[in-house]
């Protein structure tokens, strides 16, 4: 039922309803690079999930919801992009 931001990681725990979306958005704004850990989550409302897809933060799994793990995890985890994605991190950042 919560979005918790602890020592540089954003945790999604339990079922996250539509109202959690705002909290999640705030968390990723406050900590732009923070990974999102959804290993303890239950059901995620679409609003919460779409933010995860939108912000491109890396996601630590496996997802607590087996359906999401099966169908959506591959859309978010850093090492597995959608099939035509080119680069995940820029090389030689100056």
């Amino acid at each position, binding site marked *: 039922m919560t979005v918790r931001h602890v020592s540089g990681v954003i945790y999604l725990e339990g079922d996250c309803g539509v109202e959690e979306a705002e909290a999640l958005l705030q968390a*990723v*704004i406050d900590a732009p690079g923070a990974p999102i850990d959804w290993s303890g989550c239950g059901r*995620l409302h679409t609003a919460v999930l779409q933010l995860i897809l939108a912000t491109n933060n890396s996601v630590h799994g496996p997802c607590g919801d087996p359906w999401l793990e099966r169908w959506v995890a591959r859309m978010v985890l850093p090492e597995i992009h959608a099939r035509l994605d080119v*680069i995940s991190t820029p090389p030689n950042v100056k």
Partner: protein
Amino acid sequence: MNELQQQFISESKELVLQATDDLMTVERSGFDAERIDRVFRAFHTLKGSAGVVNLPAMGLLLHAAEDLLAAVNAKKRPITTGLVSEALECLDQVSAWVDAFEARGVLPSDAGERARDAALRLRALLSDNTSSRSTPNRHGPVWAAALMQEVAATDASDKALLAVAYEPLPGCFFDGDDPLALVASIPNLLALSIEPREPWPPRPDIDPFACNLRIHAITATTRDELAAIFRLVPDQVEIFDLAPVTTPTATAAPDTKTTALLDDIIACQIDMLNAGDAGDNSYGRYGSAARAAAHALRHFERDDLAFDVEAALESAIAQQNGNLVRDALRRVTAALAAPSEDRDRDPDSPAAPSRSLRIDEAHVDSLFNLSGELIVAKNSLAHLSKLVETVVGDGDLGRSIRRANENLDHLITGMHSAILQLRMVPVSQLFRSFPRVARDLSLRLDKRAELTIQGGTAECDKTLVERLFEPLLHLVRNAIDHGIEAPEERRAAGKPEQAHIALEAARTGDRLTIEVRDDGRGIDPAAIRAKALERGLMSADEIAALSDEKTTQLIFSAGLSTATAVTDISGRGVGMDVVRNTVEQLGGKIAIASRLGAGTTVRLDLPVNVAMSQIVVVEASGQFFGLPMDVVNETLRLTPDRVSRIKNNRGFVLRDRVVPICSLAEALNLPDKPADDRADHLVVVAEAAGKIIALQVDGIHDRLDAVLKPMKGLLANAPAYSGTTMTADGRVLLVLDLKELFS
């Protein structure tokens, strides 16, 4: 929307309502001559109206329905439940189209295909009393093909699949919707994609309570199941049938006897359902049909299809509508039509999208060349046939020869079309290597760019694929090199660091469009103006007078480049003029649109087929040349009094226009006869490169259809020639490219 169209819309709606009522009454209470007549007239009127507002697809469908009802009206056919259902379905479709026409002024792009399929079905009913046993294959929307690649071969084979497009409304959360929960409840899910409907804005601007997703899925479940899941949001969901995927036949040969029996049993159930008296929607009928079908399916180990039929039966009972069973049986027929019967298929073999033969490309090429030469040969026969007529007269022999020639002409043209079709390949072949190219280039230039491909299934002649690779490569390189900013620059501009390049192909009729879209820095008209001035492309006044749009098009001019450094990666901007030339040589057009700071789109518009040209043969300086008919307006013989001389130039007046006369021989730098003012001038009036001109020639001969062979070898880059062909008497004919000749 003009008054005629308004009237069409209101009249059609009324007619559809009335005909629907009548049909349903007939279905409930049986044959009624007056009602049937009314229904027939309704279809007849609808068909006529569709013609008036020029909606041929609608007209086609209504025509088939009208024929069917005419037969019923004339008591040549009994009115059965099956027939009523078909007529009602037809009215549903018409109603949907009228709505679409009202909303958008046009029918949906698949209207033609749907009309043809439905008309076929209706006509099958007319010819014999059995329903058509195969459902038309529908390929579904373009994205479905891409998504199908993620479906495991074993999951997909032999099943009729459904593709779902779900685009929740932005405000749906406030209605209490949880779109993903609905998607998660789809049974037999085989593939899923979730994308943003519009590009995500920078984080602080994201509205967490606005839904910005577009969801695509492929599933093996039934329409009824999906309808139940999405019953509260039907306007946001679209469902498409997908043709069953067939796998290549593996080792064991199918037991044809068993297959035939199963097919037959299913077909018999459909026949039996269609043979009911109108008004007979009894459970006994469709219930037994469903049970018999399900039994047979289970017996032949098609439990999956049996399940579908049983599910349909339950729905049919709930809705008191036996047609649901019939629809399910039709789907089963389609699913069974997949040829593979062997259950032990190789799990690694990829699912082939359709039945295909492996053919060496060289064979297709030689077939195509042969066919081209056949066309030339048939032209020479036409020539001879005319000669014969002058010698033999218009007697029987002359006529017979002419008829034989016409027949041959028809056959050869048909064959040529069919062979042209063989050469069609999906555009994805062209796009295949680009993601890699984009990746490598991005790495090299320290940029972050993602390349996506859409519309790869669109088909075009393979020549296009071969000839467009270089130009497209140049465009993509340009986009990454010049268009897309470095990550820091993008961040500073509030753009996502990851830039996006889209390669999108689409096919409309016989045109293929390809777009290269990037979300980079766009083209700066000011920079182009400055460069144009610097390079002396045109005067300062001319440049100032150009709109931003026209300025952008200058990018295609040779000698213009706004890159600050010439890199080996994309060369100079000079490449763009070569790109344009290539596209135009293929008979296409190219255009560029851009918004400063937002991105650039380059759009290619090409004909799908390798074209056959019509040529008129002319004579100049003792030689023969071909002029493409598409630039020729007319041919004239000018008497001396029509020709005027102004200094060294000659001209004449053609319908209030002064047309200069130019000797073709002179234009081609061939020895020319001195101008004779007392003789008639034979001219070909041509329009090219925006100019109109009359070419004076010594002779004008036949016209012929020809497939142009492009110039090769030393002459390949010679201007003014677009290709060669053979004349009727076996000589090589040079065909002129007037656009080049005059520019």
